[in-house]
């Protein structure tokens, strides 16, 4: 028993490694949300009227909605009038090249290890870096333009490609979808926009790095990715935030849209500040992510490694509308100290012969609470469809929790749904076995956890996979004594 207590104590020693604050001049709205604030944001961004109207409709819908309470996470009421809805680095408005970027910002990215510098770019990663609300640097743009690929901040897309934005914005996640989606639709400040034209296979991984820097700021980025017929793109998203005592809200929307024969692979490594070991502070990560396989034979694949945030609450989903379309969801969610996660996916099978695969790996340590919640719905029209779900939980210590809430709805007789679930603990025997081969306890936990998560990690592009492995080990540093 004494050992168990030691173990718990050890877990809580692990500290957030990215908690520094950058001193950057901020252009910021007063706290609170109103139609004036929305007008201000829209004006600041010089938006066409359809975007302003979209925002206002969303805001009015949001006012009538209630914050949902069905989730298995707990947090004190959020005061939506006590935060800023727009914060932008002052120097960013005219930024064009890497050399002109505020050195403090570059330094911030360097600490994060973001591949922003040229040599990293040459390694094949185009980065759209988002600090708080505005994209500060987009690299590799010209090369992509030659292929007809559009990869830019969404605010820029609104200026330069209003028709495309008008056609797809809200087409997968309508503004009225849920409470946080409505909030985002009203106040979204930036995010990425990607359009891959017909038949083009994007030759590099596209990448965005989000970072929340300003205090008491909500981050509401919005990402929209469209893969036209027969095209392919792999998109990476990484997140960090500095340490702060108060909680910060992150309510993003990601919309993916695949036409016939197109494929989008979307990978996330989320390492927002999780709060300190007493559970103070940390990001509320309430995100709506959804992909629509609109065309036949199209495919959307979500991979997420979630190690950060005080609360992670999201369900990257696929609507499999096109015949023979495929949806995939690979997830590792780690909760340590007082972190909470309620995450999973929804697979809506509508087209014939649609297939989906769900692999969820939860890891709970400290007093962390981890829930998998997933929906597989096979509608009447989705003949001969298949789903396979594997849902595993790994427990470290005896004060954490793991829960599974699978929802399965099948409306035809020709489809097959499989669900497998396991729960396991990191045993003293496993640790000792590795110790006996000269491996320290810390490395042993890292090795075991990475082995457990391997099926998901191997879905990530190489560079991200390495970072994800490192994060898993870091997040559990000292978790077994």
């Amino acid at each position, binding site marked *: 028993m004494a050992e168990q207590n030691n173990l718990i104590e050890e877990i809580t020693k692990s500290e957030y490694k990215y908690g520094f604050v950058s001193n950057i001049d901020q252009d910021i709205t007063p706290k609170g949300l109103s139609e004036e604030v929305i007008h201000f944001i829209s004006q600041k961004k010089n938006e066409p009227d359809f975007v302003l109207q979209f925002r206002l409709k969303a805001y009015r819908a949001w006012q009538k909605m209630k914050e949902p309470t069905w989730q298995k996470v707990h947090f004190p009421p959020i005061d939506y009038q006590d935060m800023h809805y727009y914060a932008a680095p002052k120097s960013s408005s005219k930024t064009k090249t890497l050399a002109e970027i505020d050195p403090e910002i570059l330094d911030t990215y360097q600490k994060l290890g973001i591949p922003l510098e040229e040599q990293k770019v040459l390694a094949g990663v185009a980065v759209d870096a988002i600090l708080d609300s505005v994209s500060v640097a987009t690299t590799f743009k010209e090369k992509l333009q030659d292929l007809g690929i559009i990869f830019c901040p969404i605010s820029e897309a609104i200026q330069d490609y209003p028709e495309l934005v008008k056609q797809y914005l809200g087409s997968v996640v309508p503004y009225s979808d849920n409470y946080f989606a409505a909030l985002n639709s009203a106040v979204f400040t930036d995010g990425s926009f990607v359009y891959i034209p017909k038949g083009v296979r994007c030759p590099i991984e596209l990448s965005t790095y989000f970072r929340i820097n300003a205090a008491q700021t909500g981050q509401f980025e919005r990402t929209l990715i469209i893969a036209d017929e027969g095209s392919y793109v792999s998109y990476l998203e990484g997140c960090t935030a500095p340490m702060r005592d108060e909680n910060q809200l992150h309510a993003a929307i990601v919309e993916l849209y695949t036409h016939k024969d197109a494929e989008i692979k979307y990978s996330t490594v989320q390492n927002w500040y999780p709060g300190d070991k007493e559970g103070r502070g940390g990001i509320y990560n309430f995100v709506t992510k959804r992909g629509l396989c609109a065309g036949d034979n199209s495919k959307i694949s979500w991979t997420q490694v979630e190690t950060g945030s005080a609360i992670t609450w999201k369900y990257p989903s696929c609507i499999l509308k096109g015949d023979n379309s495929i949806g995939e969801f690979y997830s590792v969610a780690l909760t340590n100290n007082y972190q909470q996660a309620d995450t999973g996916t929804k697979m809506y099978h509508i087209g014939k012969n649609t297939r989906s695969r769900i692999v969820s790996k939860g890891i709970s340590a400290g007093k962390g609470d981890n829930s998998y919640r997933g929906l597989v719905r096979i509608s009447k029209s989705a003949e001969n469809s298949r789903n396979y779900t594997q849902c595993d939980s790994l427990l470290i210590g005896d004060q954490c929790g793991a829960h599974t809430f699978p929802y399965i709805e099948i409306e035809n007789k020709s489809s097959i749904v499989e669900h497998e679930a396991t729960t396991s603990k990191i045993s003293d025997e496993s640790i000792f076995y*590795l110790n006996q081969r000269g491996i320290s306890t810390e490395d042993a936990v890292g*090795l075991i956890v990475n082995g457990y998560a391997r099926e998901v990690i191997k879905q990530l592009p190489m560079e991200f996979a390495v970072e994800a492995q490192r994060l898993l080990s870091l997040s559990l540093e000292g978790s077994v004594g």
Partner: protein
Amino acid sequence: MSLLKITNLKANIENKEILNGINLEINSGEIHAIMGPNGSGKTTLASVLTGKKEFQVTDGTVEFDGKNLLEMPPEERARLGLFLAFQYPVEIPGVSNANFLRLALNEKRKYNGLDPIEPAAFFKIMREKAKIAKIEQDFLTRGVNEGFSGGEKKRNEIFQMAILEPKLAILDETDSGLDIDALKIVAEGVNAMRDPSRSFLIITHYQRLLDYIVPDFVHVLFNGRIVLSGTKELALELEEKGYDWIKEEFATA
């Protein structure tokens, strides 16, 4: 030269005394066998030497390669050259044998002030050592013991031993549950690694394994104490007479 020197070692678990004053000295290059009836403390001895934490040492000393072994955490004992082939090797799913062993070998190299080994050089070593334990190439990329049969797990222990090249290898009932062919492979692996600078401590219930690995000394453990020591003939005698006479003769000891 003395490699391991155990003096009056006493240890218990949950206040139950299991080791009751062990004295044993092993010199470099020697093979010692420890035999004894079930519950005599054989596996406990292996666990205490390698530093398993649920056992408390209450008395005695253990010197290994001139160092106080009992002061070191388990991983340091391993890096110093102490290896245990487990009776029940655990499975580490998703971690490939190759990755696991490279990490283990590099930890040992770091401890000895050497640079980490390059992947290509390591792969070459693995291929060589794979022959010793007669293992297939796919062993290397499979998860550590993941889905292995009992025999495969034991061969994997020998393979790991071959890679890590310990000064002292303890084989804890490695023969249990093995058929005669697997037993021979294990024994051949051990014999191939016999070396004047390497010692073995072979824990076994049966004499069978000692037909293939011929020990220099045989000790009988009973009630947490070595009650008899001899040469390989002692093992044959035990095989013939069983352990009952030991129990009778040393019950009160």
